[in-house]
């Protein structure tokens, strides 16, 4: 799995380089007006808040730089709403390119496929569709590394021996992918025991409660894999309240700005993080817009790598103006 992901990253990077090379060679004379629709989830928690912020950031920068480009950002709270928006973008706004972060894979595959059949260039971000035929390009974060890197880091930090409790996100394929990658890596270290894994629903309050109960239940916990920075806050507060000193690390994830700040400041419990920035929507919009303005296409699959953030490189992942 490890080498597979790595090679995927390499391929993606190579493709990116190749397309960048082409971009330089291409003649800007062929410029055609692009109306780019962006369909993303409504800001309902920190991460989607970041998605919305980065999408608007991309709109601002790209529209200022390209008079031929119009970016329309639509946020949806539910799958049917998003499907309607995609349709409206086509019929009302006459978009010819779409960047979509689907709320749900299966139910949005048909609506997106229909838009693509009408000649719209489709880039799908993060959550994939069930049929790759419905998309031209796919851009995603690396969920396997999101689970594997904390496992590697914690195994090393605990010298291959200790007890870990896990807070999961919401029951979803993304969460399964991350947790499976984490467990697969931990399995290589027989001295490390995962005591339990319960859902904290990517929510501070739920994480607080679950951690309180973990602390009641287990007398010796060496590390918490909170699997998300919002949940890490809840876990930290519960540990602080219980005045427990056995825990050496709370590993969140996704590179929220407060967490990265703690890494920079050398916090006692949060010393590392893994990047899974909502910035990938920005990258996807920018790549799609630039390619379409030149009449080019993107590589079929681009994985934005998840990187281990430690004090040494944390400043590169710190975006103080983003809400996330």
């Amino acid at each position, binding site marked *: 799995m490890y080498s597979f992901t790595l090679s995927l990253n390499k391929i993606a990077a190579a493709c990116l380089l190749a397309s960048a090379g082409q971009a330089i060679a291409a003649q800007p004379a062929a410029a055609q007006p692009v109306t780019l629709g962006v369909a993303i989830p409504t800001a*309902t928690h920190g991460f989607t808040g970041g998605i919305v912020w980065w999408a608007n950031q991309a709109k601002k920068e790209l529209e200022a730089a390209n008079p031929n480009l119009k970016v329309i950002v639509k946020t949806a709270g539910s799958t049917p709403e998003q499907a309607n928006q995609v349709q409206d973008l086509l019929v009302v706004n006459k978009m010819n390119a779409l960047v979509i972060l689907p709320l749900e894979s299966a139910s949005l595959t048909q609506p997106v496929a229909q838009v693509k059949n009408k000649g719209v260039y489709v880039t799908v971000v993060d959550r994939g569709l069930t049929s790759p035929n419905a998309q031209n390009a796919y851009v995603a974060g690396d969920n396997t590394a999101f689970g594997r890197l904390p496992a590697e880091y914690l195994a090393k930090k605990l010298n291959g021996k200790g007890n870990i409790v896990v807070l999961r996100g919401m029951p979803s394929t993304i969460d399964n992918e991350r947790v499976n990658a984490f467990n697969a890596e931990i399995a290589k270290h027989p001295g490390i025991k995962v005591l339990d894994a319960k859902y904290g629903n990517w929510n501070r309050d739920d994480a607080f409660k679950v951690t309180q109960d973990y602390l009641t239940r287990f007398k010796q916990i060496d590390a918490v894999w909170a699997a998300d920075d919002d949940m890490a806050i809840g876990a930290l507060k519960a540990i602080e309240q219980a005045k427990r000193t056995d825990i050496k690390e709370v590993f969140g994830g996704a590179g929220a700005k407060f967490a990265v700040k703690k890494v920079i400041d050398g916090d006692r419990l949060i010393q590392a993080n893994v990047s899974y920035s909502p910035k990938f929507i920005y990258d996807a919009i920018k790549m799609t817009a630039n390619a379409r303005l030149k009449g080019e296409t993107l590589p079929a699959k681009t994985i934005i790598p998840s990187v281990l953030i430690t004090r040494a490189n944390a400043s590169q992942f710190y975006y103080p103006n983003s*809400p996330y």
Partner: protein
Amino acid sequence: MQPTPTTDGGGALPGTPVKAAGPALARPLSRFKGAGPIVALVLLCIAGALLNPGFATFDNLMNVLTRTAFIGIIAVGMTFVIASGGIDLSVGSMAALIAGVMIVAMNALALGASPPSALAIVVIGIGLALAFGAVAGLAHGFLVTHGRIEAFIVTLGTLGIFRAVLTWLSDGGAITLDFNLSETYGPVYYQSVLGVPIPVWIFALVAIAGVVILNRTPFGQHVQAIGSNEQVARYASIRVDRVKTLTYLLLGVCVAIATILYVPRLGSATPTTGILWELEAIAAVVVGGTSLKGGSGRIMGTVVGAILLSVIGNILNLTSIISVYLNAAVQGVVIITVAYLQRGRR
């Protein structure tokens, strides 16, 4: 003045003379039904203690009671609204928005030109929260009574409005309390008095006040009379609109109290704060024996109901017998079972 309960019978108003038809039978039976949640709670606690020795410890008990305090306090207010035949779906969003507004205001004060002391800022924040809750409740009551819009619709509307405004205030991210203020404010959640955390004390006080107001005052009698039969209550010259509006105001204040205790816990408000609290509060009220159709309110039942819901979650976290995917199913089964044990008139 004392309203006579109407034809649907059986649901004797607590604290009022039971009406003529079949009192001898109805009284002990309803007593027995009122014990449903307590029996369930005791059984659950025994199960919890058997499953994990950590369950029966004082610290765990306090954890459970403290986390119940938010929903419990809201549910006490909700008992009044439901007993009068109303409903409020917006309490979770309202709590989130009050938390957000409170934090924004306190931060602004702290960063202002000549900031007052941290303690003064916290007191101002608390006052602001109470005022906000009261005004929001008043607005609900006004729209329901004078606006003649169903409470379900009014509060469904404000559910969306409150949460959207919070999301907008926070840019979809988190609103976080200034660090120095957190230090000052933190003890409100984390400090204990006589070994019992402050939120548990406040929860107890709110519950006692609720019992007194609902069962020992004319206002409480009127609330239940209106829920029993609004038309008859009108004929009995009860000022229905005013009483109903007051129930929403009371609930708004309860939401504010809960929020005041909630903010120092994590020192932040996010768009996920308070999600589904309305359903938990309504479930606590109904599990506690108050009819969703109004009429008879049971504050102590509500308190037990709220604790029951927290205990289920706590036990599920303390064990790993059941697949985590099925947690919500276990909760659902217990809720339905207790509601069945305690079903009254329909």
